[in-house]
């Protein structure tokens, strides 16, 4: 409990650092939000007027602290470009990102660990070689390219799966419909991470198999299946957990591309647009949200690891 609090508190400077970096980098981007709001008809005069209205004529540091003050009160401000409270927009989209990245993450963890373990346990067999090759292929393809290819094959040519979106426009909306829409983007997103996890799992399982306690288990006459599931996997998961924490970040980042290709209504595409439109408050809010999730997730991973590995205390 104490540890949890400590970890949560230690996340604050990290989050603060993120806000500073986001705020100042975005402010350095040439052009301004007023141009984006006014569109093609933005005259320099109107732009100046609007910037004043939006409070953008104030100093950078001053604006940052105003924002920070509001944040503490739970107010993320209003998006310039969407003319809508940032929090509303993020909450509406974040759900979708969470579903996509979450599924991809679970997919990459479960499948990655599983095939990595199988691959190690069947080292140098045909199974091992097939897995190794598949994994290599997976980590060598850009996810967006893969996504495009999948659309072409499964959606356009074979018409097995829907091209894009999260729910069917009509009739859908239930869980199966979601799964149906999720298959391609989740797989495209998970593939690289799965490959990475599988490779690392394979290596660490091989290393674990050399450990003295595995010899002890074998000397006790433990069946190989149990050696694998009770002894090897236990340790493997503990060693792979931090890697999984890192992969969560990669998956979250990769979802930007996937959301674009599959028109997934998530936060990634929104943030890309927001950065390009210099919608500072939306970027700030969105990135804070994503980063906070990542940080929280990693705290959860840490806690899980402490739970699984009693040696850490």
């Amino acid at each position, binding site marked *: 409990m104490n540890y949890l609090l400590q970890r949560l508190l230690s996340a604050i400077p*990290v989050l603060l*650092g*993120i806000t500073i*970096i*986001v705020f100042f*980098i975005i402010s350095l*981007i*040439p052009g301004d939000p007023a141009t984006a709001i006014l569109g093609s008809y933005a005259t320099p005069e109107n732009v100046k007027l609007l910037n004043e209205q939006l409070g953008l004529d104030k100093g950078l540091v001053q604006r940052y602290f105003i924002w920070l003050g509001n944040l503490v009160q739970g107010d993320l401000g209003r998006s310039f470009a969407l003319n809508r409270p940032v929090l509303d927009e993020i909450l509406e989209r974040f759900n979708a990102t969470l579903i996509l990245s979450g599924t991809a993450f679970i997919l990459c963890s479960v499948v990655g660990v599983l095939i990595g373990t199988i691959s190690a*346990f069947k*080292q140098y067999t045909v199974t091992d070689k097939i897995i190794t090759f598949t994994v290599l*292929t997976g*980590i*060598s*393809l*850009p996810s*967006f*390219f893969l996504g*495009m290819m999948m659309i072409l094959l499964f959606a*356009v040519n074979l018409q097995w799966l829907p091209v894009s979106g999260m729910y069917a426009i009509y009739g859908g909306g239930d869980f199966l419909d979601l799964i149906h829409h999720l298959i391609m983007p989740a797989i495209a997103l998970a593939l690289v991470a799965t490959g990475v996890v599988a490779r690392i799992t394979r*290596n660490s399982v*091989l*290393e674990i*198999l*050399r*450990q*003295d*306690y*595995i010899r*002890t*288990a*074998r*000397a*006790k*006459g*433990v*069946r190989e299946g*149990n*050696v694998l599931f*009770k002894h090897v996997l*236990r*340790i493997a998961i*503990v060693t792979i957990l931090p890697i999984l924490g*890192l992969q969560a*970040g*990669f998956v*979250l*980042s990769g979802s*930007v*591309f996937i959301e*674009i290709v599959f028109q997934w209504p998530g936060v*990634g595409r929104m943030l*890309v647009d927001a*950065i390009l439109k210099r919608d500072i408050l939306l970027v700030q809010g969105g*990135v804070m949200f994503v*980063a906070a999730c*990542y940080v929280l997730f990693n705290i959860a991973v840490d806690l899980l690891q402490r739970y*699984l*590995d*009693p*040696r850490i205390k």
Partner: protein
Amino acid sequence: MINFLKLISRNKLALFGGILLVIIFVVSFLSPLLPLKDPDVIKTSDRFLLPFSEGYLLGTDHLGRDLLSRLLWGTRLSLLVGISAALISATIGSILGTIAGFYGNKTDNVIMRIIDVLMAFPYILLALAIVAVLGPGLFNAMIAVALVNIPFFARNIRGVTVTIANKEFIDAARLSGMSNFKIIIYEIFPNILPVIVVTISTTVGWMILETAGLSFLGLGSQPPQADLGSMLGEGRSSLIVNPHTSYVPGAMIFLIVIGVNLFGDGIRDALDPRLSKGELVKPQPVTQIKLNKNVKNNSSSFLSVQNLTTAFEFDNKLHLASKDVSFDIKKGECLGLIGESGSGKSVTALSITCLVASPPGVIVDGSVKFQGDDILKMNYEQIRELRGNKISYIFQDPLSTLHPLIKIGKQLEEAFIEHNHQKNKEATLKGKELLKLVQIPNIENVWNSYPHELSGGMRQRVSIAMALTNDPELIIADEPTTALDVTVQAQILSLLDTLRKERGLSVLFISHDFGVVSQICDRVIVMYGGQIVEEGKTENIMSKPRHPYTSQLMECVPHIGFGKRKLPTILGSPPSITYKKEIGCSFASRCLFKKDNCLNEDIKIVRKGDSEVRCLYPHE
């Protein structure tokens, strides 16, 4: 360097990756010299020609430009960008990581917090923002990709640096008068360099993908310049109608990245010392058995080991670890196996139930008859039934031989459940009974503890209890007290001795310590260089060693009560395991009584007085 190339080429996939990369590199870097069309010349009437069209080997793109030419020029650019980005982030990341890892404390804290911040930021958005600030263009995209990857390198290198900074040779360097800066440059850097190289080799592919991703978002190279990412981006707008414009750059990215990955794996493997030691090969549940000849073993002893020869196979050469080892153990007897490191004593002990890690272990000869059946002729299931059941083991360091993440209780129950097909309840009862037997106080507490929560002595008692689970008939104890303090050692030895006598167990006791062996063994075997050199009753050997090795070794063990003095020694050091066939006495080079014919032929073991000795000139 040549060695390194050899190591890489041993791995066929890495070789394939390397060749693939070399071809791509050579062709793309020669593209200015090749008879290619100008990659930027537009001929809109020839747009979207398919591959193998006349004059266009790979077809044309949406403006009628030659795809082959653009592909090669683009590859050149993408490779340059990917490699430069990797080098930039490796340099900065490694410097940060090394500083954080070496100095630790506050420096570490500050740097790592910053790294945390950068890592929590979805990298692609960070890259996007950086490009937006710097303006579009391939160079800026490269800078952005390099920057966002710095945290990755810094984290990796920091981890390695921390490990190295805690090594003793760093303290040694400090004692040699080196300043921190010099230590980082001369001591740490050479050791992290391989890690940096490996990380670079595995990330170049990733960087190329990332730059392609930025180009995909339209922030990469500026027209008409071609790089693989922007080609893919351009091709994508006509993906459905003219997929070849996407396939061509897509396939090239795939080939480069797969080449980099395969080759990177090769480099990693070649630089990883564990691989050459076979540490990343899965050990089989049973040692590989490749018997050369059928050893006759008519012994009716409880355990009879005949001509047991176990080798380690490296580079297709057999390094013999134990040679022609033969001995019997009677029911209820405690046999000591004594020898220095590399004498083959542990290998012999593990070979009895085929527990030598394989690869590299191979049992090449011999017979191990246990209660009339030859273990070396059994299948895996039969051997498994013996292990932990009729024959059980106690190993040296209980911290590494007990599973660190499983509670003591669970580990104790396991052997019972595996062999009796009974449920947890009986197993728990049995386990607790055993803990009582090995005189563990506070059983409930220990039952729910993890190994690291117990002291060394406690852990070793747990190991003993575990070995006793299924009422074994033979216990093989491999240096069970070596890692313990003397006071604890005395207790463990006493416990083992009591249990053995109470239960009529046979024990094979392996040790390097004459004192320990003589305290509990009935009979002693002395091993040297993989062979048995002397065997006999404990008191006979202790009082009257026949083999020069035994006698010299006993002399140079320091005993208490003789004060500060010059100690008797044996010249040289024990032989290491090699694949070379050596004739004659393996101790001859260190022997004080060596004669010319000692090296002429292999020496047989012969009876001398109460003992058996492998020596032409044993002590009288």
